[in-house]
């Protein structure tokens, strides 16, 4: 049975699929690169004991946690045009939404990592005569970073998986390219959808799996007993 694998080998179809995947990966990498520094700053702000700041950041986090990312994409993509008359492209809307979402998640990860350091670590450092700066530099941050790194790498895989949604606001990425290829070969291989969507599936797996493995490896290596 003709399940579409030869369609992939025809012309530059496989290359086009990979280019489509790259569009999605590029957007997630840009979003990660912007949201990590913002999330770090917000997360450290969250560990300060300021009530107002805490409430504002909590509301921000809850909004991000409750609204599906696709709803946020729709709001930015369709809503901004209507409200402000700005015409954002799908790519720009996607980066805005993923930064808004990624920064909140990163913020919570940083808060969790810093507040998971037991109090006695601060006290022991103080008892050894360390200044506040030294305590953070040599005792707290090295431990917090070890907890944070595997979790932030996991955030990258979540980001990559979520970018699959951008096809729904009209960005031409791997899924859209797959649809185009299937449509173009509808007459010669009507069953190509099986093979081509399977390949897209495998491509996403190959993009995310190695990142997950690195995260798990680091998590085990740095596990606190």
């Amino acid at each position, binding site marked *: 049975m003709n399940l579409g694998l030869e369609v992939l080998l025809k012309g530059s179809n496989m290359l086009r699929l990979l280019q489509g995947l790259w569009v999605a990966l590029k957007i997630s990498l840009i979003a990660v690169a912007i949201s990590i520094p913002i999330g770090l700053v917000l997360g450290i702000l969250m560990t300060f004991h300021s009530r107002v700041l805490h409430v504002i950041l909590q509301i921000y986090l809850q909004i991000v946690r*409750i*609204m599906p990312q696709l709803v946020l994409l729709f709001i930015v993509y369709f809503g901004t045009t209507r409200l402000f008359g700005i015409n954002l492209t799908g790519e720009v809307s996607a980066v805005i939404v993923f930064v808004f979402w990624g920064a909140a998640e990163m913020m919570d990860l940083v808060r969790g990592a810093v507040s998971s350091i037991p109090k006695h670590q601060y006290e022991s450092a103080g008892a050894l005569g360390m200044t506040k700066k030294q305590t953070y530099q040599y005792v707290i941050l090295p431990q917090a970073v070890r907890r944070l790194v595997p979790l932030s790498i996991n955030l990258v895989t979540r980001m990559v998986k979520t970018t699959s949604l951008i096809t729904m606001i009209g960005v031409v990425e791997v899924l859209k390219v797959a649809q185009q290829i299937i449509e173009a070969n509808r007459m010669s291989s009507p069953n*190509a959808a099986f093979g081509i969507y399977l390949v897209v599936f495998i491509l996403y797996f190959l993009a995310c799996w190695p990142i997950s493995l690195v995260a798990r490896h680091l998590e085990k290596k740095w596990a606190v007993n």
Partner: protein
Amino acid sequence: MSMEFIAKYIPTYQKAALLTLRLGVLGILLAIAVGLLCTTVQYYKVPVLRHIVGFYIEVSRNTPLLIQLFFLYYGIPKLGISVTPEQAGVIGLAFLGGSYMAETFRSGIESVPEIQEESALSLALTKRQAMQYIILPQATAISFPGFMANIIFLLKETSVFSAVSLMDLMFTAKDLIGMYAKTIESLSMLVVFYLIILLPISILGNIVEKKLRYAGFGT
């Protein structure tokens, strides 16, 4: 904002929300079943099956639901197996959610210290009793926050159902935007309906989580 428009289309959104809820609940129940099955297989280290479960968990956690749905709904039928949109939605959600549930349950059981089982056995409880009275109650309480997070995550994931032509909330909103260009009204209703579904679950989860804190006593 046109209130008239909003009032007119509330029933359409209601219908869409009910579809989301119905498929979501069904998918989540199946996901819990799949998760329990996987955890049991992994806990008792069933030969062969545990490798299949391990493979499934990796695949399911490292691919997006949208791609899983596309393969299920547009790919699988080419093999001659017919799949309705609703089936695709529920199966997709169960396939995705099963691995998330399994990981949550597993980490819950693993985080009960070994000394608990050893103490139970030395008090002459059988293995089954130790599981039933000592390990499971603690593991349940520990995995509860993750379990609730999974439920909210899966309900949010249902937002991609419109890709397999299910008339859910996203589909309704996009349809109304396309037809009447009432963007702000359509998007506001979309947000409100998702809040109606997700906010109570989120609040309920927080309340139950506080009640279950006893498991963390002393840590």
